[in-house]
């Protein structure tokens, strides 16, 4: 009994990479007008509107929206920007807050019914976000140290005879591994989460439609798993947004540091 013979044709199972290339919404606009680009614009508009409305008429005793907005900004400013970068890190708080809110919302899209896919599960979007952070920490380093930033970031206080071994490692870990892992960590987490949800949800239908009577009840197990994984995905979405922002702050801190 092969997999094909027990499945009806209309169940798109197993999921494939094609699921991460949504078609154009209007004919001929691919890849500029797809589900992902609409979601990205939607996220930006929602976040901008939320913060504008929440702060439009600030009160000493905050309204609910103002309180949420202040909590998000206060958390990023105090617990990430100030604690990790130091007092001068506060000027990066607006960028870090925008990054955190954008990542949180786009990651959470992965489990909102009706949307159920995060743009970050397509490598293109994490790559752009990683490039922004990458250019930023290098730019900040050059602004602080001038051309000395190259020495600052590559040469560590160590005996001279180990320097030839350490300098290529420093170069690789700072300028090659950092942007790569920043993008791939977020992408891989969101991609894998979406694939797992697809496997259990569509797998449930595949089992229900199977010819074998014994396999039909197993679909319930599959759907229970899908629900459980959905809750796990909430955790992953929040954690990955946080990790991305924390690492960006940590890279900026490294660029600003006076000595090692």
């Amino acid at each position: 009994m092969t997999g094909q013979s027990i499945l009806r044709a209309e169940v798109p199972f197993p999921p494939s990479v094609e699921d991460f290339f949504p078609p154009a919404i209007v004919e001929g606009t691919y890849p500029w007008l797809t589900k992902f680009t609409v979601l990205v614009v939607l996220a930006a508009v929602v976040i901008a509107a939320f913060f504008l409305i929440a702060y439009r008429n600030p009160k000493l005793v905050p309204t609910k929206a103002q309180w949420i907005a202040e909590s998000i900004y206060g958390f990023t400013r105090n617990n990430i920007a100030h604690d990790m970068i130091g007092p001068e890190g506060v000027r990066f708080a607006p960028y870090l807050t925008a990054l955190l809110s954008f990542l949180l919302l786009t990651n959470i899209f992965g489990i909102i019914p009706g949307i159920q896919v995060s743009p970050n599960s397509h490598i293109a979007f994490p790559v752009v976000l990683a490039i922004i952070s990458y250019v930023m920490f290098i730019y900040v380093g050059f602004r602080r140290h001038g051309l000395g930033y190259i020495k600052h970031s590559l040469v560590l206080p160590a005996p001279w005879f180990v320097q030839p071994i350490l300098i290529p490692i420093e170069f690789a870990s700072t300028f090659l591994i950092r942007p790569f892992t920043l993008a791939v960590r977020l992408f891989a987490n969101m991609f894998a989460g979406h694939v797992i949800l697809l496997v259990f949800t569509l797998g449930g239908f595949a089992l229900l439609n199977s010819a074998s009577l014994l396999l039909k009840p197993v679909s319930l197990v599959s759907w229970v798993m899908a629900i459980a994984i959905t809750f796990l995905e909430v955790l992953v979405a929040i954690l990955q947004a946080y990790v991305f922002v924390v690492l960006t702050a940590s890279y900026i801190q490294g660029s600003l540091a006076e000595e090692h």
Partner: protein
Amino acid sequence: MADDSTPKQPRPPGDPVSGAGQGWTALGYLIGGIVAWGFIGWLIDQWLDLNGVATVIGSVLGAAGGVYLIVMKLGRG
């Protein structure tokens, strides 16, 4: 810790950041060491036709250098 009334001291500059940052720094150095010196070893392999010996030596050397960097940067204090 929203009700933490004592003002927190910012970390002194140059101090490695805590938690996730430290973990990823360590991982970055280890991978960076193996990749950087593995690549240099591979180039020497291609040049001198050593059948991968230099790649292996480079990777091990890089891993050792990575561990050295981790200890040096994160091991203090």
